């Protein structure tokens, strides 16, 4: 699989989109309430951002 260096941009957007879809599914079909959503969305953003930052820094190291 590792024929190319990891494309961090693609990874970050992949995480954001999957996070959005999962959050929406949890809200519409699961038992996430508004309170949980307001936790879930920032968490998705923070995790995606952290992954991007970590991978960028590791690549530079």
């Amino acid at each position, binding site marked *: 699989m*590792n024929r190319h260096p990891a*494309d961090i941009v693609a990874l970050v957007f*992949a995480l954001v*989109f999957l996070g959005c879809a999962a959050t929406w599914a949890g809200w519409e079909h699961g038992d996430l309430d508004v309170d949980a959503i307001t936790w879930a969305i920032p968490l998705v953003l923070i995790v995606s951002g952290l992954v991007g930052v970590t991978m960028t820094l590791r690549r*530079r190291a």
Partner: protein
Amino acid sequence: MSGASPIAFASAAPQSCGMTETVHEQPPPQTGFDPQRLRTVTHMERSRDDRMIAGVCGGLARYLNVDPVVVRVITAALTVVGGVGLVLYVAAWLLAPDQGAAHSIVGAHTRRADGDERRIRTVGFAIAGVLAIVAVASSGPWTGWSFPWPLAVIAVLLWLFLRPRDSTPVDTSATTAAADTPELTGTTETTREPAAPRPPRPRGDGSLTWLTIGFALIAAGALWLVDRAAGGVEWPDYVALELAVVGLGLLLGTWRGAGRRLIPIGGVLALVLLGSTQLPTLSAGEVRATPLSAADVSPRYELGVGSLLLDLTAIDDLAALDGRTISIEAGMAEIQVLVPDEIDVTVDAHVDLGDLNVFDREVAGWDSNLNWRDDDTDQPDLTLVIDHSLGEVKVMHP
């Protein structure tokens, strides 16, 4: 056929390039009629020196040889009519080149030879024209308006098709950013490689995009079958599923490369999914409910986009409505409820953005609430719960 006109176009371009100083330059006198110099709207350029936004109106005025104010007024007027002006403006912005420039935004994006770009412009203006006609045909204050989804899908597919197939190293932002940094050959070990010239990442290879679109189509079809068999699938489910497929495609593209063009697709899907939380249903149009008896009254009325009229004045057994609750939920719509004088109503209305008018008491703006309670008399009691995203709510006596 298309080989002849680009030559005329290419030879005309440097001429107009030199005219940028004067605003109202007369075209050079033409001697006789030369079919190769026949100008169509695809020859229009965006004005550099006479622009409010992107020089479209200025450029069109020069092309038509009329005052730019006329074009601006007409464009503004057309924008009110179902957004036609906006559609055409954006189309011209994307398709007409900047004054003196060889390529339009779309042309630079697709990076093709001039002849092909002319064809792209022709096709693009044709699509814009169709969109404009659709917009006019379906215009009106919210009523019956619906987004032309099939056309949007076609536009996205065209955009993907018209992308360059050969991967010439133009993606400088990505290649230069990674050029001076050593690479990772594994995800865990940091094995440094000598500074050998790296082969360009094959971003132009669209196989991952098509793989993902293929899986997205399969997933949509499968969900459709699930809906047929078991039911209960709503339209945002499709959007969420496709968003997940695009996300997985991007995840694959992280290591396989060539996945970035999925990002705008995912972005659009995510926005649509967000929008779906505002529209209770995808239904659009006009809903008129005039129940004749209390049994006909539905506990819930919903509408995505359009206008909704609930007329309760024709009910003959009002006493049977006592204690009942009617909930009305709409996205972008105009809601009207006609309540007979012979019942006591409690209204609990909310709108994200718009205007609430309950028996001539009025609240407008963002996130507005209005509660109304009739004096409790012997008359039957009815509760109306109205939850609206965008638009006007009116509750009134006949």
